Structure formats: structure tokens, C-alpha cells
């Protein structure tokens, strides 16, 4: 038995080793390094002098960091809850359909999710183009003033939020559909016998039974949107990146455009801690909320 144990451990070591090696190399080591250089004035490549907490202290009075933090929070607000609700509504609609029609309609909603972000950007940048975009022609037809959607401060984040919801909703819809399918038909039949209305059925049956999926979708969205970069970077090209700054973009700007690895790392650490704290908090909160039901 003992030899068996030892043999198991040996085999396990071999099986786990490749993953563990990669894990240490691309997760653990860079994380340690990130904390390390955040206390120095290093450039992107090369070492620097120890500066203690200077890089962090500077964040406090750094207007661009404030913009980045605020925009990130704003973006999360604009996308996470609205995105979850929209996906839920769509999945409720789609789940009523049957067979081929359902597959076709689902495909239309899902297709954007499968596309690379740069494709999503090129398409929407064209649709929203202030001079030639079809959305502007529609505003013209409605007799409304044109809106420089990707170029103005007020519209940028909401627009990128909408595009992001459009892009990622397919994923959430699939999860909701899976959740809806797992609710036994008998329960609905019983509710129908009780003459329960559509809303009552939803509130009493669908919503509570769907709660695990809802919280999952919400969690995935929240974590993903805190890490927003791609869309903001792309839509800001040739525009006003400094007004649209988000945290990851700021890390990128400091490190790769201004060659200040140390200061960039301080921002990265802030983001890192933020994501970890939010994940833990949210996990606990959702568990509580789920437990109460």
C-alpha cells in the first residue's frame, strides 16, 4: 500500500509537472516580479533604483490615474448589470422558440461573440462613423442631431459599453439557455395548472431556479470588464486616448509608450489587488444572496 502511495505520488508529479512549470513561469514569477519593480524606477526593459513607495504615492495626485480608475468603474457599471439583464431577456425570448428557428435566431445573437475584438471594432467604428456611418444616416432620417459617438467624452464609454454587450452577450445567453433547459418542465406544468400568470411563473420559478446561472454570468462579466483594454484602445485610435483611459490602458501607456516600467507596475499592482478583492467580495456576497433564497 505504501509503495502504491509513493508510486501514485511519483506519477502525479510527472502528470502535474508540465502544468505546474508553466504556471510558475507565467503566473507566479511575473506576479512576484511585478510587485518587485513597482518599488523601483525601472524602465520597461532593464533594472532601476529602489524608490520605495514613490510610485504609489504619485498615483494619488495623478489625474490620469484618476481618470483611468473612474472610467474603469464606469465601464463596469455600464456593462455588467445591463449586460446580464439583456442576456437574460434575450434568452427568455429564444427559449420559447423551437428547433431550426431557435438555432437560427440563437446564431444571430451568438455570432458576434465568436469574432475577434478587432473585427468588432472595425465594424462598429464604421457603423458609428460621424461622417459616413449608417447610424448617423438614421439620426438624420429621424431629424436628430448627429452624435460624434466615439469622439466625445460623454458618449465614448456608453458606446463602447453597448458594443461590448453586443459582442459578449452571446456567451451569457448560452449560459442562461443552459440554465433554463435544466429547469424541469413539470414545474411549469404545475404552475400552469395553478393558473399562474407569466410574471408570477417567472418570479416564483424561473428566477430562483436560474439564480446560480445568473450569479455565474454576473461574476464572469464583472471580472472580465474590470480588465477592459482592447475595445478602449482600438476605439481611441486617432481620437482622445487620455480622456478614455482605463486601468489596463494606463499600465500599457506607462510601460510601453512612456517606458516607465516601475510606475506602470504600480498601476498594475493596484489593478491586481482590485480584481482579487472584488472577486473575493463578490463571491461571498453572491453566496449570501444565494443562501437567502
Amino acid at each position, binding site marked *: 500500500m505504501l509503495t502504491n502511495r509513493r508510486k501514485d505520488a511519483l506519477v502525479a508529479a510527472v502528470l502535474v509537472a508540465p502544468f505546474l512549470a508553466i504556471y510558475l513561469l507565467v503566473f507566479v514569477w511575473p506576479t512576484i516580479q511585478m510587485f518587485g519593480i513597482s518599488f523601483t524606477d525601472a524602465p520597461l526593459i532593464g533594472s532601476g533604483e529602489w524608490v520605495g513607495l514613490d510610485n504609489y504615492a504619485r498615483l494619488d495626485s495623478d489625474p490620469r490615474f484618476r481618470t483611468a480608475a473612474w472610467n474603469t468603474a464606469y465601464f463596469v457599471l455600464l456593462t455588467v448589470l445591463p449586460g446580464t439583464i439583456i442576456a437574460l431577456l434575450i434568452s427568455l425570448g429564444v427559449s420559447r422558440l423551437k428547433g431550426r428557428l431557435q438555432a437560427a435566431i440563437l446564431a444571430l445573437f451568438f455570432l458576434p461573440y465568436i469574432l475577434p475584438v478587432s473585427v468588432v471594432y472595425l465594424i462598429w467604428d464604421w457603423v458609428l462613423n*460621424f*461622417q459616413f456611418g449608417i447610424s448617423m444616416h438614421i439620426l438624420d432620417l429621424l431629424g436628430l442631431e448627429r452624435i460624434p459617438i466615439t469622439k466625445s*467624452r460623454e458618449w465614448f464609454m456608453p458606446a463602447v459599453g453597448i458594443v461590448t454587450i453586443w459582442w459578449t452577450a452571446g456567451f451569457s445567453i448560452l449560459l442562461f439557455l443552459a440554465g433554463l433547459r435544466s429547469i424541469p418542465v413539470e414545474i411549469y406544468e404545475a404552475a400552469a395548472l395553478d393558473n399562474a400568470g407569466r410574471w408570477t411563473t417567472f418570479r416564483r420559478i424561473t428566477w430562483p431556479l436560474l439564480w446560480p446561472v445568473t450569479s455565474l454570468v454576473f461574476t464572469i462579466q464583472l471580472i472580465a470588464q474590470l480588465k477592459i483594454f482592447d475595445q478602449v484602445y482600438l476605439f481611441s485610435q486617432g*481620437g482622445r486616448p*487620455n480622456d478614455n483611459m482605463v486601468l489596463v490602458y494606463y499600465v500599457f501607456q506607462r510601460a510601453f*509608450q512612456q517606458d516607465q516600467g516601475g510606475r506602470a507596475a504600480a498601476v498594475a499592482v493596484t489593478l491586481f489587488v482590485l480584481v482579487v478583492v472584488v472577486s473575493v467580495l463578490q463571491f461571498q456576497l453572491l453566496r449570501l444572496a444565494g443562501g437567502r433564497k
Partner: protein
Amino acid sequence: MTISGLLKSAIVATIGFAGVARAEETVVWWDFLGGGDGVRMKKLIEDFNAAHAGQIKIDATTLEWGTPFYAKVQTSAAVGEAPDIMTYHASRIPLAVQQGVLQEITAEDWAAMGLGQGDFAPATWDAVSIDGKQYAVPLDTHPIVLYYNKDLLEAAGMLDETGKPKGMDSREGFTATLQALKDNGVKFPLGSVTADGNFMFRTIYSLVGQQNGELMTDGEFLAGDNGDKLANALGVLSEWTTAGLQSTYTDYPATVALFTSGEAAMMINGVWEVPTMTDLNAQGKLFNWGAVELPVIFDKPATYADSHAFALPLNQGKEMTPEKRAAVLEIMSWMSKNSLFWATAGHIPANGTVTASPEYAAMEPNATYSTLTANMIFDPKTPLAGVAGPIFDVMSTYFVPTLNGEMDPAEAVESIKEELNAL
């Protein structure tokens, strides 16, 4: 000799032989020439490759202009992955030298190229020199100009007898011209790249220069009344926006498209769009057009200009072979000596021999706006300046809101001052 030694020498011999057999030196080239001038540069590269078949081959790539380009250069040089040669803005050389991104062009290099200080205007030579050392070979000077649609201006009665726009000598005069165009049904009398602060830096800096203003005096930004002069410059442009005389939130491609499609009657843009117009015109797809020096809005004519130059990145951990260096020098020398064709891209060649030639003197529309060379102003020579540099970055952030009526010019100037002096 051991077996492995034998093997080694065999390998060396094979490689050496292969080297002789295909002695062609491939030179990796990056540029940011995405405007109409990019087409001309492609042609120059083709000609160069044809003239050097079997010896040197340029492998060229065009990257996004501005911040993306310079960020890529900087990170690639740091990890030894930069190209062999690249285009560079002279305005950014102080910053590049401070960052250690560029190789020096030594006296031997100049001798090998058959070029030297005497071939360039003093200001141009000075722009590529730091502490008496040169870091780039100037190719051109490229100011901004006013493009105009002759047909639309004529229809509005705003063309003078020499075929130039009226009202070029004062703020009131030029505004009146714009108004007349508007009244005559032109949608955008002036097409401006109002969505891109980076671009507008040139126009605004020109207008500051027209008031004898300076960005930086004794290491301080916008000291004294320079701040007010910047506010004045922003004021004119935002006034045109408020009066509906200028296209708002327009990005670069859209500005060019508005002008070429006839929706905008005039456009302030770099000379590098000259080939776009020439080519469209040749295809019969464009109206009658012209390009002139910027209007004098304030006290005196002044136009912002920068220089395209060739520079050699300092690749960390990689030594350039003598063969490669010779090839790169040949490229820079050839390009400089053949820059008459580059002038068809609108630019003013940096090589004095070229600009002194009768062919150049006869070239249009270059000749029309050549008067401006006397009135050109350049970026302050500091590591904070230059395309995509810190000053550029800070200022452009405030230009977009101001030019589109979101922010008051005075307020913008205050914020710019604050941020610049905190650099």
C-alpha cells in the same frame, strides 16, 4: 583536426559560400507614411530596389503614424528587435537620444554617404544634431498648408484674380471667406481634424507662432503671455466651430474624405496629402484645387513644420554588421540624392542640391506655397517635445474638447500649463 572541428569549418564554409552566392543584403525598413506620400515612398523604394538588384533589398513596412509607431520602435529597440532603418521625426530626436534609441551617424558615415553639413540648411542640420553629434539624415521639411476647392470658392465669389482664396491676410478676412462659403451652401467651409488633438497641434502651434508666441522659455512652459497666445489660437478655432464654419469631431481619414468629396471647401493639412489630390485629379475624380500658405490670422505669417529623417535604431544586444551598415548608408544617401521625386509628395526636400535645381523650382503646387519656407517654426528642442512626445501628448488631450466647444479655451490653457509644468 578533430571531427567536430572539421564539421565546424565545413559549416562555416557552407554558410560563407551561401553568403557569397546570395550577397544581397536585406534591409528591414519601417515607416509611418500612411498619407498620400506613402504611395510615393513605395515607388522610391521600388526604384531603389531595382537599381540595387542583387545587392540591397529594402523590406518595407508601414505602421500607424504617431504614438503606435514610436511605442513600437522604443520597445523593439530595447529588446533588439528594431528594424535596420526607419523614418523619424526630427522634432523627436532629443527625446530619442535621451532614451538611447538611436545610433549616431558618424563622420565616417557621412563621408561614406557623400553627404555633409553643407548639403542641408542650417536649421535642418541643427534639428538632427545633439551636442555636435548627428543622429539622423534629414529627408525633407514638411509644413502644413491650406488646401482649397477652387470651384466652390469661385462659386461663392471668394477667389481672387490669381486664383487664391480671398481674406488670407486677417482673422476677419478669413472668417468672412468661411462665412461666404457657408452662405453659399457649403456644408463645411473648413475641414479640420477636430477629433484628433495630435493632429491639431500643428495648426494651433502655427497660430501661436503667428503671435510670436513660444511654448517653452527658459525651461518653463507657456510663461508670461504665451498662455494667452495659446488661448487666442484656440479661441479662433473654437469660434469657427461655434459659428458652424468648421467640421467637428472629424478624424483624419474623414477630413480628407470630406475635402475630396467636395463637402468641405478648404482643409488645413500637411503637404503630404498633395499626392492624394494630384492622383485623384489625374484620374479625373477631383475638382480644381490649390494649396497655399496658411492664412495670417494674427500678426505675422508662421507655419509649423517638422522634418522626416532617416534614423538607425540602437538595437540592444545586437551589433550591426559592416555589410548591413554599408547597405543602410547607401539607402539614406540614395534617398537623399533622389529626393526630387519625394517633392512630388508635397514635401520640401532637405538636400540643398535638390531644392536648388530648376526642376524643383518649376514643381507645382510646391512653388505656390514655397513662400512659407521663410516663415516656418519648429518644435522646441527638448526631450519633452516631438511627435507623440510628452508635450504633444498633454496638449492634444485638451485640444479636442476645446475645438469642439466642450471646453473653454482659457480653462484648457490653465490645465495644459499645470500638466506641462508638472512633467
